[in-house]
């Protein structure tokens, strides 16, 4: 039984997390936040009331049993806490770092009316990091079902689906077009927010489940989705190709040399390691005075990357206000601390170039908020005669992305009018045997929502493949430190038949 606590008896202050000093961190790519120590984690875990109605669980897109894992932390049963989390969320070290907790689990925490919410994300990260550091893993022997599943795209949606299908005894291959797996986690989100080692460690766990990653494979062009089901003999396919096609505004000056999408900037810097040029070959030529258009996570990442690449000033140009900015609260806060200059209610009208086709400025106009639009947000309207120029030499677009066209060009998948794949409740597409989820279905969303979609599709795929409950016997764990079963929940994963 969890101990009885009241809001008055728990530690009132949310335990702060150590961070690198803003002045120092703005010059390096090391992680900004340092994670909780053991003592800090234990202290923060004490703040949870273990509410019987569990509002936080419903706030999490994959419904992690939050009070249960926090209780295990208070009991110092960290391995148990890890098992509880990984029942539903395969990548705690990643989600603990990048989830927008304030609008998900923590936003609805019982104590949030009076106190700051329990730091659920930080605790989750603590457990995830400990699992990586301790090398907790156990590879269950799952009797092969003889069924083969192909996953297209190695982002969070694909990874989550792959793991569930592998645990159900399927032979799973993940196809990825880049030379490294991980999707946006790898090429988009920078190291100072989510170190590559964390992603690689989590991907390694998937490999241990027997999942094969085939990089350098452009599905649609090297072979089609239909071919996966026919010639290549897969029994089911999941598509998690993300929504990476970047938008531009169509204002004059967009083909100047210093104008690029945040995706290009981040891919060059993170995946291709242009920040270590000339040790790595990919160039970037960062600006000294940079304007980033947009105020989502992508914009924050782009701005903070530019600072670290040596920019003297970085402006954020956003046509609404801070309240409407879609980025995680913590990221805006971190960006401000690092010295990003925010220009709210500002919209670009023209990018100015010099004779050599380089950017020399950005002409903007001021906005004010008018009537609410369909999304319920107040629509920004321009203020007459408010134009002014910003002195910049680089302009980065982070105003959103669209659906990638390749699978639409090469398959009979039904798309909606904006190019996203049409999927039903169970995420089945218009082709029998093919499911889809993540950003390519919903449009740009979050890591945990993409993972949730991957798991939801996996449940439907298991049903379709007839992988039903059977008697399950697990072999004793092969590795792992304390002899406990790891990462596998009998009720969750009793689809597979296991021989002893």
């Amino acid at each position: 039984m969890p101990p009885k606590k009241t809001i008055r008896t728990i530690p009132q202050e949310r335990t702060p997390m150590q961070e690198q000093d803003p002045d120092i961190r703005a010059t390096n790519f090391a992680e900004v936040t340092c994670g909780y120590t053991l003592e800090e984690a234990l202290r923060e875990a004490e703040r949870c009331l273990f509410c019987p109605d569990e509002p936080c669980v419903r706030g999490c897109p994959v419904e992690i049993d939050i009070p249960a894992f926090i209780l295990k932390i208070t009991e110092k049963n960290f391995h148990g806490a890890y098992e509880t989390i990984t029942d539903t969320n395969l990548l705690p070290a990643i989600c603990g770092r990048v989830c927008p907790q304030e609008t998900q689990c923590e936003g609805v925490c019982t104590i949030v009316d009076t106190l700051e919410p329990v730091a659920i994300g930080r605790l989750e990260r603590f457990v995830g990091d400990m699992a990586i550091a301790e090398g907790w893993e156990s590879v269950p022997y799952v009797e092969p079902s003889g069924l083969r599943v192909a996953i297209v795209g190695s982002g969070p949606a694909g990874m989550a689906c792959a793991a569930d299908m592998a645990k159900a005894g399927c032979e799973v291959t993940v196809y990825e077009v880049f030379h490294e797996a991980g999707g946006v986690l790898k090429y988009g989100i920078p190291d100072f927010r989510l170190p590559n080692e964390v992603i690689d460690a989590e991907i390694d766990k998937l490999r241990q489940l027997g999942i094969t990653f085939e990089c350098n494979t452009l599905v649609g062009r090297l072979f089609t989705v239909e071919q996966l089901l026919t010639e290549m003999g897969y029994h089911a396919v999941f598509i998690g190709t993300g929504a990476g096609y970047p938008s531009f505004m169509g204002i004059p000056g967009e083909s100047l040399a210093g104008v690029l999408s945040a995706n290009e900037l981040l891919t060059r810097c993170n995946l291709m390691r242009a920040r270590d040029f000339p040790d790595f070959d990919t160039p970037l030529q960062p600006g000294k005075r940079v304007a980033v258009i947009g105020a989502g996570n992508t914009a924050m990442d782009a701005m903070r990357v530019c600072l670290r690449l040596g920019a003297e000033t970085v402006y954020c140009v956003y046509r609404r206000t801070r309240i409407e900015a879609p980025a995680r609260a913590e990221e805006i806060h971190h960006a401000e601390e690092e010295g990003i200059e925010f220009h709210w209610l500002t919209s670009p009208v023209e990018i100015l170039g010099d004779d050599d086709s380089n950017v020399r400025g950005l002409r903007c106009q001021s906005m004010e908020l008018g009537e609410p639009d369909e999304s319920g947000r107040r629509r920004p309207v321009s203020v007459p005669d408010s134009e002014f120029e910003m002195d910049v030499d680089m302009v980065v677009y982070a105003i959103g992305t669209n659906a990638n066209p390749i699978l639409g060009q090469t398959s009979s998948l039904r798309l909606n009018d904006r190019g996203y794949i049409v999927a039903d409740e169970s995420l089945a597409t218009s082709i029998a045997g093919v499911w889809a989820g993540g950003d390519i279905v919903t449009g740009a969303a979050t890591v945990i929502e993409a993972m949730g979609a991957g798991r939801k599709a996996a449940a439907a795929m298991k049903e379709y493949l007839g992988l039903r409950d059977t008697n399950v016997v697990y072999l004793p764990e092969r590795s792992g430190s304390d002899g406990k079963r790891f990462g596998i929940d009998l009720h969750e994963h009793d689809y597979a038949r296991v021989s002893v």
Partner: protein
Amino acid sequence: MTADSRKTSQFEIVRREDFSDVTYLLEIRHPLMARAARPGQFVIVMEHEHGERIPLTLADFDRDRGTVTLVVQAVGKTTKEMQERCQVGTSLYALVGPMGIPSHIGLARKVVCVGGGLGVAPVYPQARAYKQSGAYVIGVIGFRSKELMFWEDKFRAVCDEFIVCTDDGSEGIKGLVTAGIEQAIAHHSDIDELVAIGPPIMMKFCAETTRPHGIKTLVSMNPVMVDGTGMCGGCRVRVGDQVKFACVDGPDFDGHAVDFDDLMARLQRFRASETDALERWQEACRVRADAEAQREPPPLIGTRPAADR
């Protein structure tokens, strides 16, 4: 686990041919790609783990041998390094494709296929496909001079008519490929289509040559690319009043609508870094060559001729 364990050695180079001291051919084993490849498509290559992703057109593919062929011109750090390191038996770190929309080999009855310099290689598969579709193919190839010519026989074999142009007149017509195009147009009033691949400036003038005659003209755009999958937008080109991503909407576009000046300006985007990288690499090569020369073991018997450095 390290990036090393991801390193595949599946992209083995099985043949290499040097056409000149700057142009070389690599034939690489990739049976699946050989099957999927269509004329007009390209691949992205990374020579090594620290390398850049560079796009190269599929110059040929052989389904029986299970190979694809690239023809590369050594222009900067990556392509020069590849020239040095890509030998038969070595492997590329990454090779992905085929990318881009295949050229539309329609019902054109009479086509002109123009290749300028290196562009001869990427236009070859299209000429062959037109020939196979039953069209009358006029090949026009242009080089600076006779010594730089390659694939002349191969190209000629898929053409009904074949026109060679050289800048210095050492072979065929003395002049640019546009002279060859004009000659073809003069002899044939019923040309349906013209395909031109080569440097942007050449493609621009090809388009200008056909414009007054209203001949449909396709050109292959080669902007700077990163991913080749529509994710970065670095490869955007202006076509008419629209912005297109060459890697997923192309690389072939209507030559009469393309903004070549915009393309040429955007190709200069990373000029400073590229020059820097090339100079550093050449310097490193010099240092290495010097060090190796010094490390040479002393001759056992003192009869070896003195320093041949």
